[in-house]
């Protein structure tokens, strides 16, 4: 999950954050890290680029990107079988 946090920080240009500042279960959006719909789109590309996982639509992101843990779980579940 530490790697994933690093990737999130890089992808979203969250310069003032360190990986350890993001809690595993901390909500990424709104009240948590304060991310928004554009960040969700950036994270979709991150999954595609780093893990070759393609989300079908933006709505699916809502549950996948709840926290770093849900994202990591989704990656574990889908890695390897995502090829189109």
């Amino acid at each position: 999950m530490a790697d994933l946090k690093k990737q999130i920080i890089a992808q979203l240009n969250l310069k003032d954050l360190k990986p350890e500042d993001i809690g595993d279960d901390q909500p990424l959006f709104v009240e948590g890290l304060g991310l928004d719909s554009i960040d969700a789109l950036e994270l979709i590309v991150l999954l595609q680029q780093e893990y070759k996982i393609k989300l079908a639509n933006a709505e699916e992101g809502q549950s996948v990107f709840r926290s770093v843990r849900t994202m990591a779980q989704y990656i574990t579940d889908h890695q390897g079988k995502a090829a189109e």
Partner: protein
Amino acid sequence: MSNRVYITGVGIISAIGNNVSENLSALETGRAGMGEMNYLQSIHREKIPVAEVKLDNEMLAVASGLPAHFTRTALLSAIAAQEAFSNASIPGFTKLRSGFISANTVGGMDKTENFFSDFLSKPAKGKLRNVVHHECGAATEIVASLLGIKHHIATISTACSSSANAIFYGARLINQGMLDVVIAGGTDALTKFTLNGFNTLMILDNRYCQPFDENRRGLNLGEGAGYIVMVSEKVAQTLPSIPVCTLSGYCNANDAYHQTASSPDGTGSYLAMKGALEKSGIRAEEIDYINLHGTGTQNNDIAEGTAIKLLFEGHYPPMSSTKSFTGHTLGASGGVEAVYSVLSIQHGLIYPNLRFETQMKELPFTPVTTFKKNEAVQNVLSNSFGFGGNCSSLLFSKV
């Protein structure tokens, strides 16, 4: 009222026709302009439908009188602006103080993106003539000189509301007595840049768009240009017959919610429509038709619909999104739809919202689905909302 602004001419080129009459006949027969890409070169060709103007640059060059190596943005602009200009046929034009006020979002990007792949391989590569008209203002300069206009030129770029703002700025310059006649509207060509940009936002429909439908999936990009010719009361008096249509109201407001998304309650849309009504002194129940912004995205249609619900509660006028025909022509859309709005008033027409199937569950109204002629159309509201929260509404009225 002495500072009325009259509309004396319209010109258009879009995916459903290369001039006003072709556009009208497509609107009447319900023929949409989307399809597989024919001129735009993109890897998304088979997946993403677009609404292209059905002419290549060589043919556009012949129709516009410009060289074929000019940007498609300029070629489209030249065709529609010249049609509007000749349609207006203003006596003694050269003696009047005239302005050309245009709008677009990506300027000459259709050429720049070709230049750029060569340039990236080596900074000394890439033909300079492909980037010389990159700036948004370049197309405006080219067309202004075709039209012989020098007194005032301006280009506005406020994303999807660009040409609505161009029209409204032009009307104000007439109102203030700075200019006698203004040709205003906008142009945008399809580019890989915008196609891929909207694709990253995941708001492109891979089928034909269904604006204001419960099951809408997104928008189709289009291209084109639309211009109207506006004159002062004084100039209108010199015409063989007084024009029937005026620009009676307008308003520009900002949603100030998010860089790309509209606020859920459509604050910006509401303020723009309300402001246009207030400016004209016309009540909501007097509106006979709304030409919706209606892109077909989840976000736009609910925001715009919610704002309409709030403003028109109890007396919803007929409304439709002509983007179901033309696709979303971005910086040109306000001009294209201003032309349709003026034609609506001139000919008593209301246009259908194609492919509408299911009412949105949040809204108590549905768009018009059939073409209507001989309607008593007195007042038409045209909406243009976009990125950066830029929201503008124009109100056209019969004299």
